[in-house]
């Protein structure tokens, strides 16, 4: 009996009673078999942990999106009820003041109608290359819209000294996860430090500001885009008019 096959059947839950007996015997008497079994068992455990961590990260992303679209009813403090009620009243009052002062453009709507994830144009993933590089992993996750994982991979790439392109795509993934602040920081560093994606970074930075309701910076960034580049010029002008 092929030991590999036996292990396969174990992990595929396909062991018959007879084979289970054989399996148990080997486990007791064959140290190599036991080592191999332990290895696969550990792997199973590790993959489970990995999956759970990825999922939790995704949920944290969903939560941020909910929070940012629902800021008024946000009551996350652990104050006692009365102080919570007081701060809630304050929030409502502030919100109302802000609304009555600046009521005008709907930033979320403007963001949503203009934002489109920038396609991967820097790394070609082919089925046959089977590469193991971090870059490949990062862009594979990016193309699969698994942005939580892409962020992790891009951050690892940055640790290895890659910047510029990586920051730009990192920002895209952050935007997809609703992490505006992080996206803004990454885009700024593209604009300051990189030769590539400067114009594109301006466009996305303006959108990120828009998403975080920072109209002043959004307008300034759009103006700089229109003055210095051709990328998305018309859209930027339309957006500027809408914000005017």
């Amino acid at each position, binding site marked *: 009996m092929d030991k590999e096959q036996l292990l396969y059947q174990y*992990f595929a839950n396909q062991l018959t009673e007879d084979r289970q007996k054989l399996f148990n015997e080997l486990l007791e008497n064959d140290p190599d078999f036991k080592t191999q079994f332990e290895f696969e068992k550990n792997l199973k*455990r590790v993959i489970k942990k990995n*999956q759970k961590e990825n999922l939790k990260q995704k949920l944290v992303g969903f939560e941020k999106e909910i929070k940012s679209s629902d800021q008024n009813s946000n009551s996350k*403090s652990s104050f006692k009820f009365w102080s919570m009620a007081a701060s809630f009243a304050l929030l409502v009052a502030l919100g109302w003041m802000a609304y009555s002062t600046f009521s005008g453009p709907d930033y979320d709507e403007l963001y949503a109608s203009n934002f489109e994830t920038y396609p991967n144009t820097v790394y070609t993933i082919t089925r046959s290359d089977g590469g193991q590089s971090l870059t490949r992993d990062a862009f594979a996750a990016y193309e699969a819209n698994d942005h939580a994982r892409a962020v992790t991979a891009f951050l690892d790439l940055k640790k290895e000294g890659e910047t510029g392109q990586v920051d730009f795509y990192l920002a895209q993934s952050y935007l997809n996860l609703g992490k505006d602040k992080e996206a803004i920081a990454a885009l700024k560093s593209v604009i300051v430090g990189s030769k590539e994606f400067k114009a594109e970074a301006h466009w996305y930075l303006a959108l990120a500001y828009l998403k975080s309701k920072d109209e002043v910076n959004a307008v300034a960034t759009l103006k700089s885009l229109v003055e210095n580049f051709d990328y998305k010029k018309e859209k930027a002008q339309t957006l500027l008019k809408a914000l005017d």
Partner: protein
Amino acid sequence: MKEAKTEITLEDLRKGSDLALKRVYEENRDKFLNFARRYHLSDEENIDVYQDAYVIFYDNVMNGKVESFTSSIATYLFGIGKYLIFERMKKNKKKVSSKYDLSIVGQEDELVNSFEMEEQELTPEQVLLKRHFGGLGEQCQELLTLFYYRGYTIQEIMEARNYNTENVVKAAKSRCMKTLRERIQANKAH
């Protein structure tokens, strides 16, 4: 009659679709928070518990413990959530009032009593393995995850990922395992 907004099925969740994940998260969030409020943890803690409960629920969907929905997803989440909240209260050394005694078993508790709730710490060996697993190529990680986590057979992997034959899948899996073993070995040798 079919409604425009279809119900999320177990299959949708099992397929790992992000859209289904998100919809289930959003649809049950407020219900859960309302339910959790009676235990007097902070809202932030409750959200954290909700997410942990969701992760555990999803894990049990994946490992086959939940084979069909006998109750609404919310009921599962409440059951897990209640367990997690008690654990937290114990940790915070808050006295669990008899009102919340675990022995008062609701429908939701029975539903989830076969679930794996506890997450044990990884052994040093597993930590090493986790690191090197993360360093594998996308294809390897996916293949091994399908097999060891999602319980796909070699044949199912072949069909789901357009491999030509089962042998190609087997060979790919062996290669991935070999790489993993070699990298760990190299790491130990250092």
